[in-house]
């Protein structure tokens, strides 16, 4: 089928199948569909939209059909994205299964594992969370201590993970576990899939400075993980985790650079503009102009890197540079939003539901340069792997 035909058919299908209420921009957290065993749909339309898209495999358009995907080519997937954007169609399903575990399984999983785990992700039936970081081992994953002891057909897992996103709402966890205590540090870690619906797994939300609790501590207390649910070989976990981290970095950056409030809109909101729309504070205006330039530059850089990747130049360790630049930019944008709003930006709780949203986003942005590899770690990676500077 030609791309033009595909575009036409897609357009028609979306027009016929996307409920009207799913054609409005996401207003709040509650509008996002995460799926999972205990999921409560926000509306009937949200449920219908997920079912219809999942049936075509379009929750994961580029995954093979046999694993619940749409089997689309990259170009076709891009057309689908464009056509969804054209009608403001919401994403039918967001999940760490789609963004992270899926790509790992597609690359490192066995056929059986793919058949077992991918379709429920595609249909939003199982919600996954990620178990990498531990107290005392943030950027330094190598020193992690959660232990898995081989015991027949399963591992007995003990330890504690931290920064597990939405672990309290998830069904399964993909976790890095030290299974080979005698192997050198980097080679002793395995990548295990663990069902959280068992007595040995418990979670505790972490309250953040933004007042929200998207992350948990997750405790393993003689938890069981089947050996057949280990992805890759025993000891290959570090390699798989690195592969996934680069996916995560790209995700954080694209979220960081685009969308959201900008300081010029903020100044209009707070009335801090002259009659002709010029920002009232000339020095703040200069700071915003420099942000605009870097924003344009970052946007252009993302497009350039994408084009170069399409020409086979690969992103590689440059992902670390993009992640660093993009997240620093996003922090600056949020700071300038707050300045442009002045006192209004300080509002935290009030009568309107949106009160405090800007401040929460500003606080949330500070995590960008910590999660998925801190800025410092990314600068180390760039120095060593892009600039080839020697280890300290």
């Amino acid at each position, binding site marked *: 089928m030609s791309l033009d035909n595909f575009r036409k058919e897609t357009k028609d299908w979306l027009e016929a199948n996307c409920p009207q209420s799913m054609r409005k921009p996401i207003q709040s957290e509650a509008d996002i569909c995460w799926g999972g065993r205990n999921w409560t749909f926000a509306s009937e339309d949200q449920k219908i939209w997920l079912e219809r898209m999942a049936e075509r495999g379009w929750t994961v358009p580029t995954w093979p059909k046999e694993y619940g995907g749409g089997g689309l080519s990259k170009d076709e997937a891009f057309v689908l994205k464009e056509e969804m954007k054209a009608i403001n169609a919401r994403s039918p399903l967001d999940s760490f299964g789609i963004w992270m575990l899926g790509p790992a399984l597609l690359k490192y999983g066995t056929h059986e594992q793919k058949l077992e785990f991918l379709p429920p992700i595609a249909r939003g039936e199982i919600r996954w969370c990620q178990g990498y*970081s531990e107290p*005392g*081992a*943030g*950027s*330094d994953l*190598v*020193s992690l201590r959660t232990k898995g002891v081989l015991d027949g057909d399963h591992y007995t897992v003990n330890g504690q993970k*931290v*920064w597990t996103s939405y672990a309290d709402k998830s069904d399964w966890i993909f976790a890095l576990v030290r299974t080979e205590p005698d192997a050198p540090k980097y080679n002793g870690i395995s990548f295990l899939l663990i069902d959280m619906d068992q007595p040995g797994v418990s979670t505790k939300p*972490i*309250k*953040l*400075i933004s*007042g929200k609790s998207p992350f948990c501590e997750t405790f393993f207390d003689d938890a069981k993980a089947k050996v057949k649910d280990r992805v890759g070989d025993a000891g290959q976990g570090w390699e798989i985790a690195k592969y996934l981290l680069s996916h995560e970095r790209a995700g954080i950056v694209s979220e960081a650079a685009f969308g959201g409030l900008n300081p010029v809109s903020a100044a209009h909101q*707070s*009335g*801090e503009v002259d009659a002709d729309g010029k920002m*009232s*504070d*000339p*020095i*703040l205006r200069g*700071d915003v102009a420099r942000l605009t330039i870097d924003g344009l530059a970052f946007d252009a850089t993302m497009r350039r890197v994408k084009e170069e990747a399409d020409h086979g130049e690969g992103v590689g360790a440059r992902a670390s540079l993009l992640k660093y630049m993009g997240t620093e930019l996003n*922090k600056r944008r949020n*700071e300038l939003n*707050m*300045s442009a*709003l*002045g*006192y*209004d*930006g*300080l*509002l*935290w*709780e*009030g009568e309107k539901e949106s009160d*405090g949203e800007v*401040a929460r986003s*500003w*606080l949330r942005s*500070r*995590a960008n*340069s*910590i*999660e998925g590899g*801190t*800025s*410092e770690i990314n*600068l180390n990676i760039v120095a060593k792997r892009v600039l080839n500077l020697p280890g*300290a």
Partner: protein
Amino acid sequence: MSFVLNEDEQMLRDSARAFLNESAPVTALRTLRDEKSPTGFSSELWSSFAEMGWSGVLVSEDHGGVDMGYAAAGLVLEEMGRTLASSPFLSTSVLAATAFNLAGTDAQKSKWLPKIAAGETVIAIALDERARHNPDHIETRAKKDGNGFVLSGKKRFVNEGAGADLLIVVARMDDDQLGFFMVDPKADGVSREDRRTVDSHVPADFSFDDVKLDGDAFLSGADDSDAAYRRLLDAGRACQAAESLGVAEQAFDDTIAYISEREQFGVPISSFQGLQHRAAHLLGELELARSLVRRALTTLDTQPSQAPLWCVAAKAKATQVSRLAAAEGIQMHGGVGMTDEYDIGLYYKRAQAAGEFLGDDAFNAGEVARMSGY
């Protein structure tokens, strides 16, 4: 004027530090927040400020105060910044006391300054009307009406507005001069909307809808009430800068303590040169802010005519450095810096809010340029 603390000042600082660590540590702010304190401060703590003798720091001895000056007030505020103590000290003991000192009649002073010194009242100053501090943009009007006035207008984010017994409202008079007016927040025509802010304070917006005021609501003791207004702003900036400085100092100290403890790759992360250089740079920025704040405060006390430039410079620098110190603090804390469990996020929030009051670094840099004639 001296950069080095004299004996009285050292004693004051030491006792403020000891008292606040004991009576108003960061956990006290957490309690106010979690219990949704209606005023955002503790009345009990405010009373004890009077017992410590701080409430009357700018009140003459005749009126029951200790008359120690702005440098002393700044020391208390710096220590308050360190523990994030929430108290009407700045609004009442600094701003309101300054307003009475500069513009009050003898009768007004005799009535109100002793109350301030005794910690018997909470007074809020209603200044700003826009989202960003803008001292020229005052549209609230006090029209002459017989022997009294009629007040109309709106004020925004009035600090301690939710818990104030009395408002001092800056309003434009019939001759377009600005004046200070005492307003009972419960008077007819006054409406209040509380604003719970990111730093867990509770400023309030006020509307004044043809509020009738007696003639002696006007602080009529100043020769030049516009000039008194400017002086009040300067004093407020230097003192707010002192609090921001304390915020910066403690954020920095917490961060140095954390990175010295926290290990990664088998060594304390404070041993990494990348962090060391940033920490050393931050210390330099702190030293600069410290000097400007002290200079602004002592100049207010000894050569007030020279103070304006130092006050705006100090406010700009303290705002910038406190935000930077807390932001760097979160980053150096890593993941735990994002959790509510650690204090560093609270410092970041307070740095933002304190920085906004009476103008942030951009606003005050503009004032520096203007005062310097370029």
